[in-house]
C-alpha cells in the first residue's frame, strides 16, 4: 500500500493554496457574501413587516377620531306653541334646533351669517330629535337640554383635523378699539403686530399690510369680544389695524398691555373648509361648555348617509352578515359533499380528473370574473334582484367553493386508512364508514378551512360591485332579497366620497372589517389547535 504515490506528492508543491494571502482574501470575500446574503434575506422579511406596520398604523391613526363625536347641547323649546302635543310628528324640528342655536348668538343677523350658523348643526338634527321624541313623548311641553350632533366640519375642527386650533399669546401693548360691532379700527401701542403679520403672509401695499384669505387668520380678543384683523397700517407712526368684529365687544375701552390676546390660525381661510366666523362661534360654544365629546353611537348603529356625521356602518354590517349566511349555507354543504365524493367515493377516472383540475383552476380565477358570472347568469338570465344579499351570497359561495373543497379534501386525506379499514371490518357500509367515522374526524380541519374561506369571502369586494351591491342604500336591510351593501363595498364607496369626514369613517370601517377577520381567523386557529389530531 505504501508504494502507491499520490500525485500531490510528486509535482511541484503548490504552497499555500488554502493558507496564502489570496486564499484568505477569497475566504473573507466568501464569508462577506454569506453575511450579505443573510442580511438581504433579513431585510426582505423586515421590509414586509415594515409594510404591515405602516399600513396598520396609518389605518389606526386615521380611524381613531371617528370613534368619538362632538355633540352640541342646546336648550330646546318643546312647548305646545312649537310642537302640537296631539301630533308631534308634524312639527318642524329642524327649525326648533336652529332657533335654539340662533338664540345663543343674538348678534348674528344677516341672512348669510345665519345660514352659516345653522350649518354648524348636522343637517340630520331635526330627524334625530323627531325620532327621540317619538320614542319618549314625555319630553314634550317643556324646555329641555338636548344634544345634537355637530356638522362634520365643526366636528373635525374640534378634533383638530381641519385647521390648527391656534394658540393664544398676550399682546404686550395697549390695544384700543374704535367700536363694539361691525367694522372697526384697532389702535396698537407699538408696531410689533405689523412685523408679526408680515411673518404670517400679509401682502404689503403702500405701507398697508393686507391679511387676505390666503394669509393666516389673526384674531384679537379684547373686552370680552373678538376682532379679526383685515389690514394693518403703520403709516404716521401709529399702528392702526382695521378689523371685523366677530363677537361683539362689551365696551370700546382700551385694553391695558398684556390684557388683550392675539390668536393666530396658521391655515389660511381659503385653504380650510371652515371659516373664521364659524371658528369663533364654535370656540364660544366650547367656552360655554356646551360641546361634549362622546362615543360615536351614530357611526355604529345607523345606515349609510351622504352626510359624514350621520353615516353609519350598521347597514353594511347587517348586509355582510346576511350575505355570509347565504354563502355559508350554499358553500359549506356543497363543498364538503364534493370533497367527500372526490376523496372517498370517486373511482379514479377521466371524469374525476377533469373535476379535480377544474376545481384547482377555479381557485385561481380572478374574483371579478365571478362577478361577471353573477351578472350574466343570476341577474340577467334568472332575473334575480340587483343588490340583494342572496345574489351576493351565491356569487361568493361559488368563489369560496374551491377553497372549501381543497381544504376539506386535505383534511379527509389526513384521516388514516386504519380508521376506514376498522369501520369496514366490523361491517359498516361505505356510506356509514364515511359519515360515522371519517367525516367527524375530519370535521375540525374542514371547519378551519371553511372559516378561512369565509374570511376571504368577507373581505371580497370586486364581484359584488358587478351585481349592484355598490348602490347607495340608506335603509338597514331586513331580509335576503332587500337591497343591501356590505362592509368592503361600503369602505370602497366611502373612500371615494370627497368630504373630509369620510376619510376617518373609511378607516374606522376598515378597522371594524379587520376586527371581524381577526375574530374569524382566531376561531380557525383555536379550532385547529384544540381539535385537530395528528395521526
Amino acid at each position: 500500500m505504501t508504494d502507491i504515490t499520490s500525485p500531490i506528492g510528486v509535482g511541484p508543491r503548490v504552497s499555500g493554496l488554502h493558507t496564502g494571502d489570496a486564499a484568505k482574501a477569497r475566504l473573507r470575500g466568501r464569508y462577506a457574501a454569506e453575511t450579505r446574503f443573510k442580511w438581504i434575506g433579513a431585510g426582505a422579511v423586515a421590509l414586509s413587516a415594515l409594510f404591515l406596520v405602516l399600513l396598520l398604523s396609518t389605518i389606526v391613526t386615521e380611524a381613531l377620531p371617528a370613534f368619538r363625536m362632538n355633540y352640541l347641547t342646546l336648550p330646546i323649546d318643546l312647548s305646545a306653541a312649537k310642537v302640537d302635543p296631539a301630533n308631534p310628528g308634524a312639527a318642524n324640528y329642524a327649525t326648533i334646533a336652529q332657533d335654539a342655536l340662533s338664540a345663543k348668538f343674538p348678534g348674528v343677523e344677516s341672512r348669510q351669517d345665519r345660514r352659516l350658523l345653522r350649518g354648524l348643526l348636522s343637517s340630520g338634527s331635526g330627524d334625530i330629535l323627531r325620532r327621540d321624541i317619538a320614542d319618549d313623548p314625555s319630553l314634550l311641553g317643556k324646555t329641555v337640554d338636548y344634544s345634537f350632533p355637530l356638522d362634520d366640519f365643526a366636528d373635525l375642527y374640534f378634533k383638530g383635523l381641519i385647521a390648527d386650533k391656534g394658540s393664544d399669546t398676550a399682546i404686550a401693548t395697549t390695544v384700543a378699539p374704535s367700536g363694539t360691532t361691525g367694522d372697526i379700527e384697532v389702535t396698537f401701542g407699538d408696531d410689533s403686530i405689523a412685523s408679526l403679520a408680515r411673518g404670517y403672509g400679509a401682502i404689503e401695499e403702500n405701507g398697508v399690510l393686507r391679511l387676505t384669505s390666503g394669509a393666516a387668520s389673526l384674531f384679537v380678543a379684547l373686552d370680552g369680544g373678538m376682532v379679526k384683523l383685515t389690514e394693518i397700517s403703520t403709516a404716521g407712526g401709529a399702528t392702526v389695524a382695521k378689523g371685523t368684529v366677530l363677537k361683539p365687544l362689551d365696551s370700546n375701552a382700551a385694553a391695558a398691555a398684556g390684557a388683550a390676546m392675539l390668536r393666530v390660525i396658521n391655515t389660511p381661510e381659503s385653504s380650510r373648509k371652515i371659516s373664521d366666523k364659524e371658528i369663533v362661534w364654535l370656540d364660544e360654544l366650547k367656552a360655554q361648555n356646551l360641546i361634549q365629546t362622546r362615543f360615536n353611537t351614530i357611526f355604529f348603529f345607523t345606515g349609510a348617509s351622504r352626510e359624514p356625521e350621520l353615516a353609519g356602518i350598521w347597514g353594511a354590517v347587517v348586509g355582510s352578515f346576511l350575505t355570509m349566511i347565504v354563502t355559508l349555507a350554499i358553500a359549506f354543504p356543497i363543498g364538503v359533499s364534493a370533497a367527500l365524493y372526490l376523496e372517498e367515493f370517486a373511482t379514479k377516472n377521466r371524469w374525476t380528473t377533469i373535476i379535480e383540475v377544474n376545481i384547482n383552476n377555479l381557485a385561481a380565477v380572478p374574483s371579478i370574473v365571478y362577478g361577471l358570472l353573477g351578472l350574466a347568469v343570476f341577474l340577467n338570465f334568472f332575473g334575480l334582484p340587483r343588490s340583494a344579499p342572496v345574489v351576493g351570497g351565491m356569487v361568493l359561495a361559488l368563489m369560496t367553493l374551491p377553497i372549501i373543497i381543497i381544504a376539506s379534501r386535505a383534511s379527509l386525506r389526513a384521516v388514516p386508512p386504519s380508521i376506514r379499514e376498522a369501520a369496514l371490518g366490523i361491517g359498516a357500509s361505505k356510506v356509514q364508514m364515511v359519515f360515522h367515522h371519517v367525516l367527524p374526524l375530519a370535521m375540525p380541519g374542514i371547519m378551519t378551512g371553511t372559516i378561512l374561506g369565509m374570511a376571504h369571502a368577507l373581505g371580497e369586494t370586486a364581484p359584488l360591485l358587478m351585481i349592484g351591491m355598490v348602490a347607495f342604500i340608506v335603509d338597514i336591510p331586513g331580509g335576503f332579497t332587500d337591497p343591501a351593501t356590505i362592509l368592503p363595498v361600503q369602505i370602497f364607496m366611502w373612500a371615494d366620497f370627497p368630504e373630509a369626514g369620510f376619510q376617518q369613517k373609511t378607516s374606522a370601517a376598515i378597522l371594524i372589517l379587520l376586527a371581524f377577520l381577526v375574530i374569524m381567523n382566531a376561531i380557525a386557529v383555536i379550532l385547529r389547535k384544540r381539535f385537530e389530531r395528528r395521526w
Partner: protein
Amino acid sequence: MIGYLVLALFALFAVTYFMGRRRALTSVSGEISKLHSLPSHHGMFLGLAAAGPALIAVAIWSIATPGIESSIIKSRFAAELAGLGIPQVEAFVRDARAIAFGGLVGFTDATKEAAAIAYRSIHQTSIAIILALSAVLAAAGFYLAYSRIAPAYRARHVVERVLKIFLILCSVVAILTTVGIVLSLIFESLRFFQQVPFYKFLFGLHWSPQSAFTGAGTEAGAVDPNIFGAVPLFVGTLLITLIAMLVAAPIGLMSAIYLSDYASRSVRAVAKPVLEILAGIPTVVYGFFAALTVAPFFRGLGESVGLGVASESALAAGVVMGIMIIPFVSSLSDDVINAVPQSLRDGSAGLGATKSETIRKVVLPAALPGIVSAMLLAVSRAIGETMIVVMAAGLAANLTLNPLEAVTTVTVQIVTLLVGDQEFDSAKTLAAFALGLVLFCITLALNIIALRVVQKYREQYD
C-alpha cells in the same frame, strides 16, 4: 309562500321519517335483527320518497318561473310593447313585477298597472300549480314507498344510492361554475364582437367607450368600433403587473429563503404570522392605503426631485399590489424550497460551500421550476387583482410605459363599465365581458403553464 312550502316539505320529511321507522319496527315486531336495513334507513327512504320529488319540483319551478312569467307578460302585452327596444321591454317587465309585489312607488302608468295585475294573477296561478303538483308528488311518493317497507326490503341501498347521487351533483357544481363562466363570457363577447370586430378590439390603440354614444337617442344607432381598442388597457395592466412583480419577487423570494434556511425559531414565529396577516388583509384596504398614503408619498417624492408624478400613478398602484403579493410569492417559494431534499444541502456543505453558496448554486437551481411556477401564479394574481387598481390607478386609457403616469387596467375598465345603471345590451357593457374573457383566458393560460412547468422540469430526487 314558497318558503312555507319548502318548510312544510321538510316537516313532511321529518314526520315520514318517524313513520317509516315505526313501520319497519312493527313489521318485525321489534326484532331489529330480522330487518335487512336499519329502521333509520327505512325512515330515510320513506322521507326521501315523500318529500324528495316535491322538493326537486319546487327547485325547478323557482328557477324556471320568473322567465316563463315574464315571457307570458311580454306576449300578452305585445301590442303595447311593439316598437320598444329590448332594454325598455325588460324595464317594463321589471316595473310590472315590482308593482305587482309591492315596492315600486312613482313612475307608473296605466299599461304598467294592467301588466302588474296580469302578473299577479299569473303568479298566483303558478303558485297554485306548484302547490298542487307538490301535494300530488308527495302523496304518490308516500303511497308507493310506504307499501314497500318490509323486513326484506333493501332500504339502505336505496338511501345510499340517493346520497351518492347527491354527492356527485355537488361535485358537478364546480364543473357547472366553469361552464357558466365560460358560456356567459363567450356569449356576451360574441354579441360584442358582432358590433365591434375582434381585431379592432384586440389591436386597436384607442380606448374611450364612455364616448360610445354622442347624445341621446343614438343607442340603437351604429357603434364606432374604433374606440374599443384595448391595447392601452393591456399595456397598463402589464406595466402595473411588472412593477408589482419587481417589488414582490425579490422580497418574497428572499423572505422565503431567509425563513426556511436562516431564521431562528423565534424569528420565524414572528415573521410567518406577519406574512399571513399581509395575505389576509382585504384588497380594498390595500386600495385605500394606496390612494391615501402611497400615491401622495410618491407624488411628493417626485416633486422634491423635480419629476411630475400623476396622483394616480402606475407606480403607487404597482408597489402596493406588490406588497399584497409578497406573502403569495413567499409562501409558494417556501414550499418549493423546503421540498428540495436535505441531502443536496448536506452534500454541498460537505464540499465546503457556505450556506449562501449552497442556496444560490444548489437549492435555487433545484427549485427553479417551482419558483418559476410560483412567479407565474403571482403574475396571474396581479393581472386579476381589481380593488387596488380601481382605487389607486387611473381611469383614462393612456398608452404609455412611463410608471409615473396614470394608466388604466383591464379590471378597472370592467368595473367602470359595469358599475352604475347601464342598458345591458349596449356595446359598452358587452365590452366588459369581452375584457373579462381576455382576463379569464390569460389567467387560465398562466395557471396551466405554471402547472406544466412544474410537471415537466421538476427533478425527481427520491
